[in-house]
């Protein structure tokens, strides 16, 4: 995972808990470690801070936002035990509970949100490209942090795949809409042969932004279990 994505960088990862993170990941010099071990046994505040750092690591791992250089140490030191498995189950559970359910995402997308999404889509269309122009950013905030893109199927002789630019910070969800008017598509989004999200039947797929990283994605539309259209795009961050 690239380090340039803010929270995914080790340097930017809770700098207020740097010492605790160093301890947990086994990166503290031996002398410092011995002193710190004594402190965390004697002092509840320090022990609590290590727990907090540990929880941040598990949450980041569950969200796929753990800095790459920490992954091996984290898996070896903290995850490879029954306690680690239970902690990861909590991190996944809390993450799942903090998101709307897939069904809710699909079917309770009503009234104001739908209208606002349409407004944003119109703004994108006005720009004539598949990325929001500068003026659309406030609109993206207003639609419950959903950023909408409409995709055209890959055609023969297509010069290049479209680039989708994520609005920074404000976006929580990315909604991909396929151009074909149909109500019987099953949609599957894949990055590097890894399944990211599935939805349907319908013509749109909504994904939590935190599941997305820059890269080339393939969205496949299935009709009656058979792939009927492909939509490829590159997701980029500003």
């Amino acid at each position, binding site marked *: 995972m690239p380090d340039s994505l*803010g*929270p995914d960088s080790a340097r930017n990862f809770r700098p207020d808990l740097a010492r605790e993170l160093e*301890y*947990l990941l086994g990166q503290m010099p031996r002398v410092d470690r*011995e002193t710190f*071990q*004594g402190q*965390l*046994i*004697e002092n*509840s505040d320090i*022990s*609590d801070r*290590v*727990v*907090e750092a*540990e*929880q941040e690591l598990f*949450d*980041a*791992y*569950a*969200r*796929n*936002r753990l800095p790459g250089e920490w992954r091996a140490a984290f*898996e*070896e*030191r903290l*995850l*490879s*035990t*029954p*306690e680690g*498995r*239970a*902690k*990861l*189950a*909590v991190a*996944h*559970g*809390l*993450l*799942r*509970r*903090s998101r709307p359910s897939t069904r809710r995402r699909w079917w309770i997308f009503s009234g104001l949100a739908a209208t606002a999404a349409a407004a944003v889509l119109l703004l994108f269309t006005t720009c004539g490209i598949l990325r929001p122009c500068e003026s659309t950013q406030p609109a993206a905030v207003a639609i419950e942090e959903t950023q909408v893109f409409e995709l055209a199927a890959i055609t023969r002789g297509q010069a290049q795949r479209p680039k989708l630019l994520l609005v920074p910070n404000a976006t929580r969800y990315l909604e991909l809409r396929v151009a074909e008017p149909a109500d019987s598509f099953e949609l599957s989004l894949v990055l590097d042969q*890894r399944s990211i999200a599935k939805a349907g039947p319908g013509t749109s797929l909504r994904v939590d932004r*935190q599941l997305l990283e820059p890269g080339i994605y393939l969205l496949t539309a299935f009709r009656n279990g058979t792939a009927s259209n492909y939509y490829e795009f590159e997701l980029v961050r500003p």
Partner: protein
Amino acid sequence: MALSAPLDQPSFDALLAALSPDGSSNAADAYEALRLRLIRFFTWEGCTLPEDAADETINRVAQKLAAGEKILNVLAYASGVARLVAKEALRGQSREQHRQVLHFPAPKPPEPDTAEQRCFEQSLSALPEESRQLLLDYYKFDAQARIAHRNRMAADRNISLNSLRNRALRLREKLETSIRQCLESKRRDVSPRRDTKDDHA
């Protein structure tokens, strides 16, 4: 790890007295807090049986006190004993047990209806409503958004950020313990029953 004799009443009384020498604080609370910190320490150090190691540490400290050893700072003494117990425990664990390197695939949300998910929902629903809400609210978002959100939560409840954090940490630890027990019981349920033929042979 060489186990000392089980804790007897005089040793336990000596430990409680040392944890609250002037009687101003609750010795039982101090004991529980020390045991919790020790369990955490042994977990982070990679001991496979952190509760046992914590109890062994407490036993050794208590027996020294009961034997009349003059210990000025019982917590500092306990931390020295704990480091020794950790070294012994880790030495005793096989290499595989100590740092069993498992190669995990890239993390992704678990498939619906996995044992982890069922145990999470079961353990979460066992919490009182107010605790459940606090927990779910506290761990929303990530990074900077999370910090700002927690500040708002503390302000809304009119408590310090530290108090809020402590409550959330404890609740989450409780949830983790409950899930671990749930996963262990599910594992036992699916394990084949031990054949009793040997007993009859």
